[in-house]
């Protein structure tokens, strides 16, 4: 399919979904949770099973609605994250406030679809303001986001305090847009969220190729005939839709977390965009489900905040435990590398000693300690590793010698070291007295292929080249 056809289909579906769900939104009487209940108490086992099984109608609505929202936000958030637009969502969500207030001022009542349309309109205005401010030379993107976020919020608050004085008590429902009030979610709200979530997921599936190319290489996308601006606007529109329907559930301050946190968490696990999108959707849905369930069990806790905390927990688990990009993995890698380098140093020091005095003469710990600048502690540690691996043995006179297996490894390292030294001397014109340090760093990471290339470049095939420091008459 061509770009254009796919986008047209996506847009059509999107519009259909939204109109259908807005039309669906008819008022249904539901019993609100009591807001006078102010104590946190642990739920009984029955309540837990009842909530988990979604037996209660109200809970079912809330849990399903927020879960779908988490899914949609995770999916579209992935693209926003990769386009480095993560905080644009923050400006957007704060900028919805004036729209809500204006619609409310005009209508004087809480008509959800119209309020959301107002929110979307002023949100879009906020995004446009960020884009416009960014073109002013002295205003950078970060300042533009901060300005729009706070000034729009200020306008919203001004209008709200007018609402507060003019209407009687009705504005209580509007507060829920700021902090979110998932517990008050109605059937039609869940339908709306469901519709938007479907539209977002469908839009992302249909436009996946275009979104991908836009995220990674905008200029290339343009050169391939992809209507960059149009695709970009579609992406933004999906973000706006998700944000606006999310306002009620998690509130305008925290809705941005649903857009940022799950994709950031998913990024740790994979380098593949498709996997990342799916994973972010799942993480978003899981945190929303978990958060909604917990807050259904403990109604006094604010749902939005609980959802964000769940997402936060998932984020930190991902950041710590992810196999390749995770912090623990990289700490482990660093530790393993340090261990390997220490081992190499011991082996090479022993090999150099052997080279000078013959294989049968062992090396005393004192000599080994003065062979290079290492502390007794780290030498001992590396030495123990070498002995445990059977590469070094301790003789009766407390002398250290390479074992047969150790010698093979030590010879290889020493040879790599010498090859690199020679390479630097011959090809990089570095003085022989200056090459040791460099070779010392590089010898641990020389791969087989590079060693082969070095051999070819230096015409060295088998033997260990003699130390340049000795060869060039240097005192070492």
């Amino acid at each position: 399919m061509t770009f254009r056809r796919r986008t047209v289909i996506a847009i059509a579906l999107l519009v259909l979904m939204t109109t259908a769900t807005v039309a669906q939104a008819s008022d249904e009487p539901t019993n609100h949770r009591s807001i006078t209940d102010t104590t946190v108490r642990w739920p009984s086992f029955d309540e837990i099973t009842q909530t988990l099984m979604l037996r209660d109608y109200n809970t079912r609505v809330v849990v399903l609605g927020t879960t779908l929202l988490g899914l949609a936000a995770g999916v579209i958030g992935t693209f926003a994250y990769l386009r480095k637009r993560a905080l644009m969502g923050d400006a957007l969500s704060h900028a919805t406030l004036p729209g809500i207030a204006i619609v409310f001022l005009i209508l004087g009542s809480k008509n959800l679809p119209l309020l959301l349309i107002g929110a979307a309109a002023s949100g879009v205005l906020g995004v446009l303001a960020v884009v416009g401010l960014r073109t002013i030379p002295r205003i950078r993107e970060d300042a533009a986001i901060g300005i729009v976020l706070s000034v729009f919020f200020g306008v919203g608050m001004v209008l709200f305090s007018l609402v507060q004085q003019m209407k009687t008590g009705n504005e209580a429902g509007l507060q829920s847009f700021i902090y979110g009030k998932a517990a008050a979610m109605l059937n039609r709200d869940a339908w709306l969220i469901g519709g938007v979530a479907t539209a977002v997921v469908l839009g992302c599936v249909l436009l996946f190729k275009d979104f991908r190319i836009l995220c990674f290489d905008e200029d290339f996308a343009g050169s391939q005939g992809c209507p960059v601006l149009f695709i970009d606007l579609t992406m933004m529109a999906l973000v706006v839709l998700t944000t606006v329907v999310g306002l009620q559930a998690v509130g305008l301050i925290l809705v941005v977390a649903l857009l940022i946190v799950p994709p950031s968490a998913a990024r740790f696990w994979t380098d593949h965009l498709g996997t990342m999108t799916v994973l972010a959707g799942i993480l978003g849905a899981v945190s929303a489900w978990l958060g909604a369930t917990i807050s259904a069990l403990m109604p006094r806790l604010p749902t939005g905040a609980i959802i964000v905390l769940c997402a936060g927990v998932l984020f930190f688990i991902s950041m710590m435990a992810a196999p390749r990009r995770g912090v623990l993995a990289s700490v482990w890698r660093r530790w393993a590398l340090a261990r390997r380098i220490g081992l190499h140093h011991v082996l090479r020091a022993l090999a150099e000693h052997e080279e000078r005095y013959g294989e049968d003469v062992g090396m005393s710990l004192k000599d080994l300690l003065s062979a290079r600048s290492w502390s007794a502690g780290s030498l001992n540690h590396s030495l123990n590793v070498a002995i445990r691996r059977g590469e070094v043995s301790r003789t009766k006179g407390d002398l250290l010698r390479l074992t047969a297996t150790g010698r093979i490894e030590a010879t290889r390292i020493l040879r790599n070291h010498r090859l690199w030294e020679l390479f630097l001397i011959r090809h990089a014109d570095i003085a022989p007295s200056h090459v040791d340090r460099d070779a010392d760093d590089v010898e641990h990471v020389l791969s087989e292929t590079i060693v082969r290339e070095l051999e070819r470049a230096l015409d060295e095939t088998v033997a260990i080249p003699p130390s340049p420091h000795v060869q060039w008459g240097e005192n070492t």
Partner: protein
Amino acid sequence: MSGWDWSMDGWIILAGVLSACSCALVGNFLVLRKMSLMGDAISHAVLPGLAIAFLISESRSSIAMFIGAVFAGILTALLSQVVNRYGGVEHGASMGVIFSILFALGLILIRQAADHVDLDPGCVLYGNITQIPLDAIGGEVPPAVINLSIVFVANLLFVVLFFKELRISTFDPQLSTTLGIPAGMMHYLLMILVSITTVANFESVGSILVIAMLIVPAAAAHLLTDRLSTMVILSLLIAAASAVIGHVTAAFGPSWVGLNADTNTSAMMAVIAGLILLAAVLASPQHGVIGKAYHRIQLALTITCEDILGLLHRWREMNTGTPRPMYRNEILAAVGDSTLSRWALRSLVRRRELTADMAAKPEATAYYLSAQGISRAAGLVRSHRLWEAYLAKHFALPLDHLHMSAERLEHFITPQLREEISRDLIAPNLDPHGKEIPPELDA
């Protein structure tokens, strides 16, 4: 609001000015360090610190609040750095992750704290500046005003005493470190001050509007000046103005539009600050939209004027035997009939570079070059043809490629440059097309 009462409104305005100014002081450095969003992040994230302080001290004591805020602020800065560096998460997103999670935590804790301490979660977001005077007993100074004054003085001292250090570490962290000023320490010192300022402002403007006070006056001042010291002073003035105007508008604004109500002072302060920024964006002499547009129009006008002068000069060259004027409709047809070109004709006549013979029909008006006009036109044509000759000599371009470049550059070649080109080409008389290069005339 029924009326103006100095014993109330005076305190409110004072609190507003102090809070806006204390924010603006540190805000300058946030904006210049491209860390505006750090202000955003910290102002959200001090919430849990505040809540924990409430829970531990079981009171709204200022000391506990400030300690909690400092911890939370440093934690935000540290954590987002950790997530950014060790987690490899992009800078903006790492701040977003940290502050939204901390804010969520803060919300939950505040909900708990509200049971023990008299605290309104809504007030956290937009403050309650009009309550400030009510906390004062009798004629005393309200405690919030005292807090704000202390923070303002602390910020002022910090900025004045460490001005040099702040400037160097803001504009060139590497240089600052080599000069023995630890840029990292200045960064964290600034973060601590931002946290303290944010907390002190919770009561007056709240956690979101404080972002407006941190960023907006500084961003507006940055548009107006190139000097750091001027920028700091300007930002203070803008901050104070938005506080005063904000409160007056909040108190009386709705009644001006016929509503019997007043509105939120702190929100109005943010709105006024935003309007001042908008004015700066439009009217800043160097960076403003209006100034830019004016310069662009001026340039377009100059170029069109010069095109007309060049046209008339060439016309004179073509009709050396029988000099005849060029008519308005001919000129407009040659340079393109637009408002700009008509405007250019008018301004040329006004500056006496063209003389116009009015005719009954406007399009039959005849235009001659005056003496002044001849000298300027000759200079232009000289620039044009010298440049063509220069290009032909040094760049070996085909003859039909010379004109476009010369057409653009002729407007920007100064007499000095003409002199140099002419010397380089050993005073040529003819351009590559064989046309005469007019000699330099004294203007």
